[in-house]
């Protein structure tokens, strides 16, 4: 079957099998390997991308179900060589070690800040509660998201 959607703003049309999962479509067919693929059981969240502006686990969505929708991946965050503040925050505050969970964490964090520009530690922890990090113990991830929130607040006031 044929599927059409926009990925990071660009329209794509591809021939796929109905059973293809969105995560494999992005990684194998479009070669957007920023989105990771981990548990395969909807638990780890490393595969999180946005569909119509909302974080979803792309291992639990069919590529066909994304047809006609807007998909955004971690590759879509950087604009003209400038990292998204959330990406910057992860660099500043050591929000990653091995980096495996990072694309999913960053996409969820970006969506959180878009809805709630000043989240508490508890709100950040709840937002990422469906995602697993085996390295950081989450403390530095929370710190990274707070860094991004503070950075964006300063941009607004200055």
């Amino acid at each position, binding site marked *: 079957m044929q599927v059409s959607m926009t990925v990071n703003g660009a329209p794509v049309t591809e021939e796929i099998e*109905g059973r293809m999962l969105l995560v494999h479509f992005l990684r194998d067919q479009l070669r957007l390997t920023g989105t990771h693929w981990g548990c395969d059981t909807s638990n780890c969240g490393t595969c999180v991308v946005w569909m119509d502006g909302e974080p979803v686990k792309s291992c*639990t969505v069919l590529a066909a179900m994304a047809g006609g929708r807007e998909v955004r991946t971690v590759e879509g965050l950087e604009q003209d060589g400038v990292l998204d503040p959330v990406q910057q925050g992860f660099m500043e505050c050591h929000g990653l070690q091995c980096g495996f969970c990072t694309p999913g964490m960053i996409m969820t964090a970006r969506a959180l800040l878009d809805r709630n520009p000043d989240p508490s530690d508890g709100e950040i922890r709840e937002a990422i509660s469906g995602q697993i990090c085996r390295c950081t113990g989450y403390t530095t991830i929370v710190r990274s998201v707070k860094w991004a929130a503070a950075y964006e607040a300063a941009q607004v006031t200055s």
Partner: protein
Amino acid sequence: MQVPAPFEYARAGNVAEAIGLLERLGSSAKLVAGGHSLLPMMKLRLANFEYLIDINDLHGELGYITVASDQIRIGAMTRHRELLESAPLLAAFPIFRDAEHVIADPVVRNRGTLGGSLCQADPSEDLSAVCTTLDASCVIQGSGGQRVVSMAEFHRGPYETAVGDDELLIEIRLPLRAGGSSAYEKVERRAGDWAVVSCGAALWMDGGTIAEARVGLAAVGPNTTGIPAIGELLRGKAPSDELFREAGALASSSCSPVTDLRGTEEYKRHLAGELTRRTLSTCVARIKQGV
């Protein structure tokens, strides 16, 4: 790599189209809503179908929460996140706030739907317990029209419902009455996991005595367990710790949990009793606080 077995993908644009496709394709077809119960099962090859009918485009038609004076009507495609963010729903039934915070995780809640939760008929499904607690009725539509069934009639056993092969669950109705509140508690092994046991309670007061009380337990029987005897015990009495302990004992002895990886039968009976006691107490505390 887990991938479903091959199937043909179809998309329905509205309820009539979905029913038309179901009628044409019969039991070789399956609806997919959020897909967060069905796709994991298809990936594990526990479920295989020739056709999958995507009903996400029905969100416009079936994604709503409508409050009337005597009932709240919720469309089957309403997603977990929309339930959690509906101020009028949470004001009428705080049980939804309690439950939605402990169902899966926020990313799964962006996709999973109320209809999919009830139709999955998993014995551990939290929203089924909530709907049993609130005495919900389910509106099922086929080409012949609509029929309305109670929660007790809706679930026919684990993973089995009253929805026919060529029918759709379209709406859940929750009766509203004044003077009550509701609560939910769940014991889980880790954040976002399925319940070891969970319990919903709803209670209505008339002056100093209990006018009506309902309890719905998940994961302690083939389907959600409503225990009408608890209502009979509580009606007409003044709430007290001792009374709620008695209600807990009734829940503990009336349910039918089995020992599995999540816990022993004995432990689950203990939880059923304790969570019943706690949620009933929370209802009374909330009524006093006016929430």
